[in-house]
């Protein structure tokens, strides 16, 4: 009989446990549940999530209205409708928010799964006591965090029957901290100077107490305003803070001397605390700036990263600015960063080769990286560092010495440019053929709107499957310079061997175009753009 009872008990509890584990696994595998939870998690905690920004503004609005209602209520008769609004809407929303925050803080079902896996692994019994303990501890961890306490206390004033709870209206104000970032930064800055501020506070507290004690000793008997030690300390604090209401004033000689002393200490400590806070902000400024840049990058679509603000970078940045390309400059040198900032560029001081720095950069958004310092050693080092983190971004680097091209390319750069070489080439070309030089210069820099451009043959467009002779380039005011074909054409001798394919200069009219071929055409940008537009339109 006894045995039977035992068996029955175990099966019941075992069934509950099994159900619990099954439910935990069900939640773990349920995509929809995960998605919903993730949405709420981001809504509550992810500063870069747009719905959170809207949510924050909404909550701020609620806080402000509810506080106004509660304050108005203190001395006036409240419209019952408003009272209901405060209780049923605002307080309820706060309560729901509190529950959601508690819910998204951690995944309880993971604790169950963990325990289950551990139990199976060690071949011991599944301990439901353990699970409950762990789950509660984890939630308790959240409940006792300062923000959670504020949230909880902010719900209380909604219960208006208990008048004493109204004092908690200030916690509704504290809730504002949750929804604004700048105040948090301020608190963070102060927290950084915790040590200095504590020392200062202790010192001021000590002097205040001593001052209060002394005045109590000297004047407790002959000054009718100072009857208790509390009065004495109150006077001391009012004096030391240089507020000096004047409701209590010293009457004895000794008291006056003490007052003078306290005022001098007061001025000193106030200026000291101001300077501590000010210096904390300057220290934090660099970090805040970097933080801002990282956030800006996150909000951009496509960013170019320029490492090293050299002379070349300066001109390149001007070009990018002109073309409305987003870019970020990183340099180790304070002066160069200053120079870049003065021009209105987003510039960041830091060592790009440092892991900590690379980790916070959002490489998803960076499509091109330019490594432009005037030192090949740092160039190759930077290329190596960013290559590991960049997600397929194109890397273009300077090679200040021709000998280093291969090293920099081996490090991972897609292109290496040698400034002295390209300049020398241009000079030599200018000496030999000055008119051709002008033509090439105009084409490469797009100075006179004359450009050479590359047009890809899109599938099913007016170009696909046509032969060159069928296209009236003259009508478009274009010259067909050549065609880059992916597949070698057996009929023709290719003119140039290029990595990506076979280039045919001035192709005969019967060359057939196929999808993926690239036409190199010459013309004015208007003509080229119009031609491109026609092709893209025809492919749809």
């Amino acid at each position, binding site marked *: 009989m006894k045995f039977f009872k035992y068996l029955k008990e175990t099966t019941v509890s075992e069934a509950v446990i099994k159900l619990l584990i099954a439910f935990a696994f069900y939640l773990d595998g349920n995509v929809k549940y995960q998605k919903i939870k993730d949405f709420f998690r981001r809504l509550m905690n992810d500063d870069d999530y747009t719905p959170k920004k809207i949510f924050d503004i909404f909550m701020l609005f609620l806080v402000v209205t509810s506080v106004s209602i509660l304050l108005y209520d203190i001395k006036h008769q409240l419209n019952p409708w408003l009272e209901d609004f405060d209780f049923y809407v605002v307080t309820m929303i706060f309560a729901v928010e509190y529950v959601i925050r508690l819910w998204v803080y951690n995944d309880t079902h993971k604790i169950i799964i963990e325990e289950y896996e551990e139990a199976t692994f060690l071949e011991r019994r599944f301990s439901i006591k353990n699970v409950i303990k762990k789950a509660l501890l984890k939630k308790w961890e959240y409940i006792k965090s300062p923000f959670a306490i504020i949230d909880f206390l902010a719900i209380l004033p909604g219960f208006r029957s208990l008048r004493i709870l109204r004092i908690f209206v200030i916690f509704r104000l504290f809730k504002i901290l949750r929804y604004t970032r700048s105040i948090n930064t301020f608190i963070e800055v102060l927290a950084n100077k915790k040590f200095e501020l504590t020392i200062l506070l202790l010192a001021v507290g000590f002097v205040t107490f001593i001052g209060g004690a002394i005045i109590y000793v000297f004047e407790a008997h002959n000054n009718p305003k100072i009857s208790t030690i509390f009065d004495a300390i109150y006077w001391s604090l009012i004096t030391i803070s240089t507020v000096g209401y004047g409701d209590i004033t010293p009457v004895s000689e000794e008291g006056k001397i003490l007052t003078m002393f306290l005022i001098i200490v007061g001025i000193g400590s106030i200026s000291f605390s101001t300077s501590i806070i000010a210096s904390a902000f300057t220290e934090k400024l660099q970090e805040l700036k970097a933080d801002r840049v990282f956030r800006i990058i996150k909000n951009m679509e496509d960013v170019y990263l320029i490492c090293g603000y*050299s*002379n*070349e*970078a300066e*001109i*390149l940045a001007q*070009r990018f600015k002109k073309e409305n390309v987003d870019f970020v400059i990183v340099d180790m040198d304070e002066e160069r960063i200053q120079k870049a900032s003065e021009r209105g560029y987003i510039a960041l001081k830091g060592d790009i080769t440092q892991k900590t720095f690379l980790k916070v950069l959002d490489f998803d958004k960076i499509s*091109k990286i*330019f490594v432009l310092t005037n030192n090949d050693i740092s160039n190759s080092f930077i290329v190596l560092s960013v290559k590991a983190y960049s997600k397929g971004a194109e890397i*273009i680097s*300077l090679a200040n010495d021709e000998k280093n091209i291969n090293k920099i390319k081996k490090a991972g750069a897609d*292109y290496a*440019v040698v*400034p*002295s*070489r*390209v*300049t*020398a*080439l*241009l*000079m*030599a070309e*200018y*000496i*030999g*053929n000055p*008119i*051709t030089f*002008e*033509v*090439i210069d*105009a*084409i*490469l*820099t797009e100075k*006179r709107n*004359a450009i*050479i*451009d*590359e047009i890809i043959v899109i599938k099913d467009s007016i170009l696909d499957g046509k032969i060159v002779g069928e296209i009236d380039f*003259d009508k478009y*005011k*274009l*010259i067909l*310079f*050549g065609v*880059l074909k992916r597949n070698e054409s057996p009929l023709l001798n290719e*003119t*140039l061997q*290029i990595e*990506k394919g076979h280039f045919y*200069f*001035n192709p*005969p009219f019967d060359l057939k175009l196929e999808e993926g071929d*690239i036409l190199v055409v*010459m*013309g*004015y940008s208007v*003509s080229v753009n119009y031609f491109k537009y026609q092709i893209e339109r025809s492919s749809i």
Partner: protein
Amino acid sequence: MKIAIFGFDDYGEKVASFLNKKDLIIVVLDEKEEVKAREKLYDVIKIHDIDDDEIAKVEEFDIALAVLHDEDKNLFLCLTLRDLFPDMKIIAKVSDKDNEYKYKLAGINKLINPFEVTANRIMTILKKPLTLKVIEEIIFQDNKLSFAEITIPENSFLDGKYIKDVFKDISALYNLLIIGIVDKEISENVQFVTKGFNHKIDKGDILIVVGDIDEIERFKDDLVMLSGGKE
């Protein structure tokens, strides 16, 4: 055509390497550069100072290339050269954008700013890698394609013709493209053919063409041989 290169640092050395050795005179102020240039078997002249007497040591030359390492000296050199040879072609390297106008005031024919050139190069790599490759191959590599400037001789078969009428035939017959023209009737500057203006070709005009070197030569020969443009 004799070219005098003033300065033999990185830039001077590279420019020299792209030009024909026998046309060059290397002029140096620096002893180290002198040694380096002599090792590479260039004609080297060492001057001690930038003044009229010293520069007179350099023999006849048609083009001066000022690529001294020191920007101040380079500018002073340009001034001196312009003073001595008012009509000579002077090409100078400028390292600081703020100094460009000073060189222009000094009367330099062509200024080249290495930083700008590099930045341009990077821009082209970004936007048109294929174009860059094609142009570089054409200009700088040893292959059969080349740019050329062709002056129209008197009484050639093109004299008096309109560019649009002959463009297609020339491109098919000689496998070359006419991309620009210096139409002396209009201006001394290059006009791109694609601008749409139908230029009339006259003697003395210059055609900018791209094509096979042999074909260009054949075209040039034919221009002289086959006369009878003007009826």
